[in-house]
């Protein structure tokens, strides 16, 4: 005791000073602009999206029929499309993302690692419309040819959208997983190896348990991006409404055209909907549902981070 209490100097700076500084005033104003924007957006979704829920209640979510010309709105097929496409994208990309992450963090020498990591980060920056271009030109005919036995109508299917999304989120999930793996300190590996464990055992028992929170966070982030991706999905999914199969677990929808919330919102129907209150509310209602989905994912991500930190210190 008596050792100098090393003052948190940034706390020192937070005492309000009079007269109120110009910098402080402007900073506050700018902060409020951002907060106002977000509140505006949230309120907009809530206020303009809720009428459809008052009108149809839960049937908006459970009903699959969307015929705007006769004012019939049901979001089920789009919710189904969104969830199916996003989760399948995760399932498809995870093995490759994790495998590559393990490769670069555990096996590759540093010099090569840097190049691979830079390349992957480069890919993460490629705009979604370019992925859409590649998807339309290469993936679409490929899917049409390879899955001919399932007789798809064209190359525009939910499967195509899933694959495109898988490729799009792969760099992100891989990069973050690799960060999580590298975050585990070298000692854990060295101790395990020197006890005679194989690389596999070292990885599964020594490294993976500590990296799990980070990897889960990476997956959630990838999922969030898949849920929100509009352009690439729009271009390859076929944008066909009212496709909800009777059985939730049949594979057939994968080879048919479909619709996600984002592909619906990204179309010209938005302009058409503007003059028509019910139609507009239905569109915004879709946005509200998407917003809630993403909110849940972000909350789960934060919970995982929080749990992960507790576990590390526990």
């Amino acid at each position, binding site marked *: *005791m*008596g*050792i*100098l*209490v090393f*003052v*948190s100097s940034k*706390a*020192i700076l937070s*005492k309000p000073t009079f007269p109120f500084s110009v910098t402080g005033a402007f900073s506050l104003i700018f902060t409020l602009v951002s907060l106002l924007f977000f509140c505006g957006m949230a309120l907009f979704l809530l206020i303009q999206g809720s009428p459809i829920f008052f009108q149809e209640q839960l049937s908006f979510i459970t009903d699959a029929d969307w015929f705007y010309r006769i004012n019939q709105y049901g979001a089920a097929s789009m919710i189904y499309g969104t969830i199916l496409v996003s989760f399948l994208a995760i399932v498809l990309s995870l093995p490759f993302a994790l495998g590559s992450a393990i490769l670069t963090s555990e096996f590759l020498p540093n010099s090569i690692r840097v190049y691979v990591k830079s390349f992957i980060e480069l890919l993460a920056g490629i705009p979604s419309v370019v992925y859409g271009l590649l998807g339309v030109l290469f993936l679409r005919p490929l899917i049409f040819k390879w899955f001919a036995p399932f007789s798809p109508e064209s190359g525009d299917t939910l499967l195509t959208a899933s694959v495109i999304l898988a490729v799009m989120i792969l760099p992100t999930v891989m990069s973050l997983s690799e960060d999580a793996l590298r975050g585990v300190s070298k000692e854990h590996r060295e101790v395990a190896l020197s006890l005679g464990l194989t690389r596999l055992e070292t990885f599964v028992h020594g490294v993976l348990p500590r990296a799990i929170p980070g990897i889960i966070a990476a997956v959630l982030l990838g999922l969030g991006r898949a849920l929100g991706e509009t352009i690439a999905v729009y271009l390859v999914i076929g944008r066909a409404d009212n496709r909800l199969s009777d059985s939730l677990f049949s594979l057939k929808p994968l080879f048919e055209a479909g619709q996600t919330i984002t592909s619906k919102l990204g179309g010209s129907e938005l302009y058409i909907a503007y003059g028509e209150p019910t139609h507009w509310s239905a569109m915004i209602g879709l946005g509200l549902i998407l917003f809630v989905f993403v909110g849940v994912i972000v909350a789960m991500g934060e919970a995982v981070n929080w749990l992960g930190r507790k576990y590390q210190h526990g």
Partner: protein
Amino acid sequence: MTNLHSSKVLSVKNISVSAGDEPIVKDVSFDLYSNEILTLMGPSGSGKSTLLRVLNRLADLESKLNVTGDVTCCGKSIFENYSIYFLRKKIGLVFQKPCIFPGSIMRNVLFGVRHHLKLDRKEADGLAEEVLKKAHLWDEVKDRLNKSASILSLGQKQRLCFARVLAADPEILLLDEPTSSLDPHSTHEIEEALLEMKQTKSIILVTHQLAQGRRVSDRIVFLSSKEGVGRLIEQGSVEDLVSCPKTKELKRYLISEV
């Protein structure tokens, strides 16, 4: 040697500092007279550094620290009667570890003062030269004022920090163990500089090196930790304390330091 007729510059009255419930320093009182070097000495943990930070009010902005008692400067309490920025210009503090800002030596020297004064190029150069000479660093850096300050040695950096504090022309200098990690050459230079500065300023030096205290001080305030709290044990002139220590704590300290 403190002139008995010199005036009181700073008066510390019954200062106690605690962090929440834990006391750090209790009931310390001493005075600083003009043109003297007063040394706060004692084993680590006795609260010397905390006391220094109370004096330029660096400590009282941390909400967890409670400070009771008063410190007056020329008769007026520093907690009420002075603008905090003016106070810190008047009372300069040199830290134990030199803190160099990114940029050239010139930028570092002028770092504090350029916020207080508007200086044109000539005035700035002149001021820099003046304080670097006072800090006994001028000869070693005069050819490379525009080069980065990060390549200087530790001792040179500390003298640079010293010059930086001098540039604001404080009347009172506080130094928190300024030479504890420095080489003998830099230590000597700084001690020489302090003895020169004494002519125009009043100085409080914190050190745990008895030899330095003996070399440089006029008077010593000895603090030690009693039951976990720093307290003032004895104070007086160097000769009095060193040759005739009255308390057992001081005697123990003198023996351990020799």
